[in-house]
């Protein structure tokens, strides 16, 4: 049985993430204000970065699908939106647990949290639409438009901590973070990138098989058309 390249990439990502999380949990120093609770950083921040990046892939794939009408781009929309939603949902769960410990509440209508919630709903609508529409060409068009519309919110999510005052922490940089925390954070981010890429590619292959069959299927006669009667 042939082992595909994304399997190796996923395995590397898995092992790297294991190592980065080990260092984040047991080697890196506690955060200056949040103490050991700050160790959530090594799971939460890479999930956020790679989640947004996955949505960027879905945006590019949606444009590709609109321009070409090809199943290969449409399959990438399906794959990247699904993986993006997984990371987005994880992000909200991780964040709400972190919020409860540091802010005292699981949820607050902070701009970053609110835009993240809008993001999960908007991309959730994309997948729901894809499930509802049977006709392949129509599904491609409608879900691509929905993906492009949903993506408008992604830069807003990223900039929300800059544009509005809220509880969520502002951007950090390697200059403002202890160097002992930067290395495991970067390693976890690359690990999540590798793992998510493996997920997207494998999901793309699964979707492509299904969509190619649908796109190539011969058109069936319209059931509502009148039957031709031969004399």
């Amino acid at each position: 049985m042939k082992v595909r390249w994304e399997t190796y990439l996923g395995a590397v990502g898995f092992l790297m993430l294991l190592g980065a999380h080990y260092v984040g949990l047991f080697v890196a120093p506690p955060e200056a204000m949040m103490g050991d609770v700050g160790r959530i950083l090594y799971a939460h921040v890479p999930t956020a970065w790679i989640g947004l990046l996955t949505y960027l892939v879905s945006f590019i794939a949606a444009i590709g699908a609109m321009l070409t009408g090809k199943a290969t781009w449409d399959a990438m929309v399906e794959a990247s939106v699904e993986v993006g939603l997984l990371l987005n949902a994880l992000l909200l769960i991780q964040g709400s647990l972190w919020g409860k410990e540091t802010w005292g509440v699981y949820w607050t209508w902070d701009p970053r949290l609110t835009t993240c919630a809008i993001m999960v709903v908007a991309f959730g609508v994309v997948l729901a639409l894809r499930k509802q529409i049977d006709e392949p060409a129509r599904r491609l068009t409608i879900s691509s438009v929905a993906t492009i519309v949903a993506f408008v919110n992604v830069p807003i999510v990223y900039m929300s901590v800059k544009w509005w005052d809220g509880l969520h922490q502002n951007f950090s940089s390697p200059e403002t973070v202890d160097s002992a925390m930067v290395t495991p954070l970067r390693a976890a981010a690359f690990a999540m990138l590798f793992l998510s890429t493996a997920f997207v590619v494998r999901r793309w292959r699964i979707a492509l098989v299904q969509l190619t069959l649908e796109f190539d299927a011969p058109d069936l006669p319209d059931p509502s058309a009148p039957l031709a009667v031969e004399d």
Partner: protein
Amino acid sequence: MTGMIQGGWGVVWAVYGITWASLILYGISLHLRERAQ
């Protein structure tokens, strides 16, 4: 008194547990979906 939050390991373990469980279960779901084709 340092102003640093004390404890909190329970929530840290919960976050890492949910993260790893989700990633592993999604990986398994992809494997099963591919095999079903």
